[in-house]
């Protein structure tokens, strides 16, 4: 028979040993894991601008193409700039901004619970002598978060490419957002109408051709993936609208 004291001691020792082993493993493996996450982010940003790169080469290719990282506030002012491998303005590297947190800050501000003003990261790429602007996206699908990046041509209006990904959308349905077929639909669509008003791009259920959405501002939704498609639409509005002041101030005024 085992006494109660034996059982308590046994359980305590076991828990302490297991905890020690696990925290040691976690500490040892953390740098590798963080590197993977970072490289994946590099890949996502590059793939929006049609630069396909393997995970191993991701950081080199990134520093080769992305010439500037900016962080923009809600009024369109640049508050942080990172270029040529060093911080030129502000104290946070735009790449390290967690978009999900900034969107939460934005939501809090709407509800009157202001803590600080949100910062919006913007990546500027130079490829074949052309300037491209890449905006990271974060939203909600049917089963969990969806995210991605959208790249614009030098007019900051015409889309040159997108990359989307998701955590747990339904395979064959909502999960189709990360296929080339869907992402290519966005190419050459525009987010401002002729009057310069921000309209974003809508993912239209039943097809753009059968709707009142102008073909310039709409793409066909995924059949059977309505909620994910709506999620993409909302994500685009919610993330792109933050950059409108910057675009009107810096890009449109120079046209």
């Amino acid at each position, binding site marked *: 028979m085992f006494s109660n004291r034996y059982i308590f001691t046994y359980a305590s020792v*076991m*828990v302490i040993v297991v905890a020690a082993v696990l925290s040691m493993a976690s500490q040892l493996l953390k740098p*590798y894991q963080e590197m993977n996450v970072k490289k994946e982010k590099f890949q996502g940003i590059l793939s929006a601008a049609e630069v396909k790169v393997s995970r191993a080469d991701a950081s080199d290719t990134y520093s080769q193409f992305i010439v500037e990282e900016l962080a923009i506030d809600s009024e369109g002012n640049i508050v942080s700039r990172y270029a040529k491998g060093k911080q030129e303005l502000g104290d946070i590297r735009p790449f390290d901004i967690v978009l999900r947190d900034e969107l939460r800050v934005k939501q809090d501000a709407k509800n009157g619970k202001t803590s600080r003003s949100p910062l919006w990261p913007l990546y500027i790429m130079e490829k074949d002598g052309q300037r491209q602007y890449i905006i990271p996206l974060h939203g909600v699908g049917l089963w969990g978060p969806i995210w991605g990046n959208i790249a614009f041509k030098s007019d900051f209006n015409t889309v040159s490419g997108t990359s989307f990904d998701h955590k*747990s959308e339904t395979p064959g349905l909502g999960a189709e957002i990360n296929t080339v077929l869907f992402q290519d639909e966005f190419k050459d669509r525009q987010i401002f109408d002729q009057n310069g008003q921000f309209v974003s791009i809508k993912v239209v259920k039943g097809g753009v051709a059968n709707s009142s959405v102008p073909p310039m501002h709409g793409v066909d939704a995924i059949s059977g993936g309505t909620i994910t498609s709506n999620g993409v639409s909302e994500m685009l509005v919610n993330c792109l609208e933050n950059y409108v002041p910057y675009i009107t101030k810096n890009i449109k005024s120079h046209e």
Partner: protein
Amino acid sequence: MSNTKENLFSPKNIKLLTAPLSRENPITVQVLGICSALAVTVKLQPAFVMAISVMAVVAVGNVVISLLRKTIAPRIRIIVQLVVIAALVILVDQVLKAFVYDISKQLSVFVGLIITNCIIMGRFEAFAMSNKAWPSFLDGVGNSAGYGIILIIVAFFRELLGSGTVWGYHVVPQFMYDIGYKNNGLMILPPMALIVVGIIIWVQRTKDKVLIEN
């Protein structure tokens, strides 16, 4: 202990390894671990990594439990088993995230769910609690290999018919698509995994009449 100088690969030990591959297969005969078999078999690569992960957890876990078995109070034996499983699964998950990040993303929650894989608790309770370390190790390897084989067979057919690839390489030639062949999207959905497992069970029972219940 001197009378236990049994050959490491005695017929009895070999049987521990091979029986779970066919007649005592955890999936097709004992019908355990079905949920993960349905979830991770869309492609071969994740199925393979899942099989290896389960093998690591069962084999090492079986040895640990077998070594501790005389010290474990029966009243807390399930808790001890769970702690061992949970610790090993977290370790496997962390290692996958660090070294095969892409696949660990595809496997997502299912690596964590190895904790609830009935095969593992089943082996700890039925075998490791009453056997020595070496046979327990073989039993763990055998059972997870039996599980892995089914996973790989199912994944092979699902990937081939569902995506036209094997291990990520295109094997269905382009001219087949040109003349109208299409990938079967149904194969990618979980219900098809159940049907494939069903077919495997059917084939196995047709061949091995011993398995047919009266």
